[in-house]
């Protein structure tokens, strides 16, 4: 264990930590988006799913793990970025991406703004929790012990501003994943290959799409209240 801690104090170790925590957070997002899509199965299914999730005592372990992962990923990201900035004290007067020179560069707007898209989550996640996790606890008509989360979601996403904010946030996450998946894998030592990049991009689109389809559908009135 001390070896593991020691390794996180090295540049490669910090990237290993970022890669591992990032990929685990990604796995959480996959589960999360899958759960969101249950909404399309109807009120009872969605509320039932939500009830099973929160009534499982393991939820506290999972939440703690998520908190640790999120914090680790965020703190490591900030530390890495600060050190990276310090590694070049004087900027270039003129600097261009090398894409014009060789197709080997994967540099993109997404890859250049990871810290921005990442730090944005500090703003999004608490608000998101505030809105849904700690939002109004409507009892469901079928079983008052079960929270009517379905109603809350519909109410929230009937508000255009809420939809816009949420969709925007999801696009930022997608942006982060566009580079993040392949980058995380590579930091963990998976060889850079085209399929890896493409998988990451497909995942980014799928996850973002899965997230935004819910508010958009609600806003457009496709989901019954």
């Amino acid at each position, binding site marked *: 264990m001390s070896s593991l801690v020691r390794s996180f104090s090295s540049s490669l170790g910090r990237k290993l930590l970022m890669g591992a925590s990032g990929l685990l957070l990604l796995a959480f997002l996959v589960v999360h988006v899958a759960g969101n899509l249950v909404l399309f199965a109807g009120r009872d299914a969605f509320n039932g799913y939500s009830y099973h999730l929160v009534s499982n005592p393991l939820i506290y372990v999972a939440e703690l793990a998520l908190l640790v992962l999120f914090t680790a990923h965020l703190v490591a990201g900030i530390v890495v970025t600060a050190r990276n900035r*310090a*590694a070049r004290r004087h900027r270039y007067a*003129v*600097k261009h991406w090398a894409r014009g020179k060789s197709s*080997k*560069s994967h540099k993109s707007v997404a890859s250049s703004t*990871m810290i921005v898209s990442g730090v944005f989550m500090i703003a999004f996640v608490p608000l998101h929790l505030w809105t849904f996790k700690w939002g109004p606890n409507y009892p469901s008509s079928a079983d008052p012990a079960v929270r009517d989360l379905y109603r809350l979601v519909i109410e929230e996403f009937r508000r255009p501003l809420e939809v816009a904010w949420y969709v925007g946030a999801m696009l930022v996450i997608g942006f982060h994943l566009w580079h993040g998946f392949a980058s995380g894998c590579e*930091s963990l030592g998976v060889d*850079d290959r085209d399929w890896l990049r493409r998988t990451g991009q497909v995942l980014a689109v799928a996850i973002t799409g899965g997230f935004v389809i819910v508010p958009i559908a609600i806003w457009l009135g496709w989901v019954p209240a």
Partner: protein
Amino acid sequence: MSEATMTLTLRVWRQAGPDAPGRLVDYCARGVSPHMSLLELLDVVNEDLTAKGEEPIAFDSDCREGICGSCGLVVDGVPHGPQAATTTCQVFLRHYRDGNVITIEPWRARAFPIIKDLVVDRSALDRIIAAGGYVSVDTGSAPEANAIPVPKDEAERAMDSAACIGCGACVAACKNASAVLFVGAKIEHLTRLPQGLPERERRVLAMVTQMDAEGFGSCSNEGECEAVCPKEISVTNIQRLNREYARARLKPRR
């Protein structure tokens, strides 16, 4: 052969010493032959400056055939200029047009302090190699060369990584001034070969420790390094480095 000449403007970083302030200075070069290399153009500009009694532009260059790794300029914002798989000394002016402005800067990284103008101190890379970038074999103790067969493919892949010329363009291109492509190439070269395996863990830990001590940044997996590498060293060397590092860290030690 037609001998049309060009007029080019060089916008060159001038800095008198390590702590002196620097700035871009314009130099107009007239009657330039398209057959010249960019470094020869700097030679010509320097002859003019000498004639005018000004100090010539300091830059490093030695073999001028792309193998020694001495030269290294950021040309119009890209290390080693616009052509792929090319060192600065192999950039020829026929790729420019009359009237072009060419901006030239030194490698910039905290680990590569500027000595003067376009000359930087890259001894950090030597110190990383000193930490472990070799096979520890004393002269005289080697077995017969064919005693250890090495599969052809493995030898070829080792050679792909060993082709690194240590110019530092990877560091210069990386937004984080990271040296992991350089380190990864050496790790991969020696880990591919049976000769390098006895020191496998010790080597990667020592080299990474030294790399960090020199103040290089981390890898963001963007691949700018490979794109500018004159020897086209692949970023897979970085992923191998990550693997080797994790492996060495996790391996129980006595």
